[in-house]
């Protein structure tokens, strides 16, 4: 059936607001049932009427779908948000593959092993193992922050406008926040002179890798740094005590790496930018 006439605007608004008499109301109601155009106008009038007690179905439906579809933030995400990150940044940082279980298990196992060896008779072996592992944990943190080897969605992520360096820094920070306390706690079992000095090579390596990540995938340089460090510690341990690496000229090398890496990183931040624009 084709409707040739439509409800007068004033009458329609009056009906929505409940201001017209029963005879007119019945007439409008009968027409609206058969006229899609006027039903649509009723919807608009109801939404634009702040006093209307008709529910906003659009908003209600969205809220219901949010409750069903939007996953609850993970523990890591909540922790990062509590630490001051915005909800979107916390979501991206927590999306780091490194924060999805396996990483923390490996860190915990290695650190526990080193600490256990230190407590047992093999104190020297424990110190060597701890020295090998502890500075490399932040190195691995950078490597897994943004690498095609560990992030299966990187190809899609790389084509988005979100600043890559910001993502690397966020994820590295998140990985360090959740793993360094474990390492630091294990370091308490070691002789004085090891802890907290291991933080020096850790900081130097991390700064250099973060700067390198602004040009290339950080996984390869991280592997090179790790291999170099393992060989250096092993050779030094074979000749005497690996703790020597944390004194004298070693300290100068780490400081040079740290300062050089930070300067390069700041220059690159200025060049490539880390500010994101969220609508």
């Amino acid at each position, binding site marked *: 059936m084709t409707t040739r006439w439509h409800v007068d605007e004033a009458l329609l608004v009056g009906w929505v607001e409940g201001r017209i008499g029963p005879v007119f109301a019945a007439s409008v109601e009968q027409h609206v049932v058969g006229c899609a155009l006027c039903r649509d106008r009723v919807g608009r009038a109801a939404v634009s009427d702040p006093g209307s007690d008709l529910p906003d179905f659009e908003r209600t439906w*969205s809220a219901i*779908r*949010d409750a*069903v*579809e*939007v*996953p609850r933030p993970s523990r890591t995400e909540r922790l990062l948000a509590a630490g001051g990150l915005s*909800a*979107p940044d916390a*979501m*991206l940082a927590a*999306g780091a*593959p490194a924060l*999805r279980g396996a990483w923390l298990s490996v860190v915990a196992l290695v650190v526990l092993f080193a600490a256990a060896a230190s407590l047992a008779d093999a104190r020297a072996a424990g110190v060597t193992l701890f020295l090998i592992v502890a500075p490399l944990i932040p190195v691995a943190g950078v490597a897994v922050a943004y690498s095609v080897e560990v*992030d*299966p*969605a*990187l*190809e*899609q*992520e*790389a*084509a*988005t*406008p*979100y*600043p890559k360096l910001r*993502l690397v820094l966020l994820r590295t920070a998140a990985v360090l926040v959740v793993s360094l306390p474990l390492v630091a706690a294990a370091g308490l079992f070691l002789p004085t002179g090891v802890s907290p000095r291991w933080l020096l090579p850790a900081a130097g390596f991390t700064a250099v890798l973060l700067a390198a990540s602004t040009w290339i995938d950080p996984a390869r340089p991280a592997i090179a740094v790790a291999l170099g460090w393992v060989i250096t510690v092993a050779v030094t341990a074979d000749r005497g005590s690996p703790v020597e690496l944390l004194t004298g000229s070693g300290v100068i090398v780490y400081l040079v790496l740290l300062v050089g890496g930070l300067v390069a990183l700041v220059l690159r931040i200025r*060049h*490539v*930018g880390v500010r*994101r*624009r*969220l*609508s």
Partner: protein
Amino acid sequence: MIRPTVELIGVGKRFGGTAALDGVDLALTPGITGLLGPNGAGKTTLLRILATVLAADEGVVRLLDHDLATPQDRTAVRRRLGYLPQELGFPRGFSAFRFVDYMAVLKEWGSAPARHAEVRRVLEQVDLATLATKRISTLSGGQRRRVALAQALLGAPDLLVLDEPTTGLDPEQRVALRRVLAETARAATLVLATHQTEDVAALCDRVIVLSGGHVQFDGRVAQLVAAATGRVWLADAPDPAAQASWRTGSGRYRNVGKAAPSAAEVVDPTLEDAYLLLRGATTSDSIEVPA
């Protein structure tokens, strides 16, 4: 004249000693362009360059009026870009909704209500609204590809780069996808690489055939098909003179070659016939494409 939204001048890319792309010149305008070519022709390399995830070694790449010379240029392009890569990867444990939402954050959608509405819009566009809460690892290959396509459609991009978008989709899904892509291409430049010539025939205004890192053909689909007119014929047996022959459902053989024999039953060519002819053509006997 419409200003090109994608412009490549003398673009080259090498991997070790192999040239994946060599001296590629292209100028694309809004609409759908299909990219055909055998494996290793350079399709994916070209699309990765268009998606700004891979830098060309030589030549000029200009996308949406930006030269990609600076990080700011690349970011400006990425704000208007959607990309579906060939190899799909998803973070472990993510649902379809969470992944597209995660990608929306990377695409600078900050406000949660607007972002969630956009995520729902694109999931509905690819017909995945009812599977939004499913873990991606439990979805089929075609459904995963549609999840990845949904993230590419976020924000209605001006440039959409799709590497094999119909792989793994059943015929109904492919038709539905074609509808979505045709709708999107009304206001955008869409480049898609595929091995499915029927998708190109159904969707694209223009087709580019890559071979060995070079552009072998660049023109309208109808031009390429027209070039095969009179070169496709049916016979009761494979014709030794044909460049390619195969048995059809009717039991007869479809032959494509340089010219049909005089008494042969000539049939209308398809884009696949024309593509096969082009692929078989050497430099000396390349097929002549009418203007």
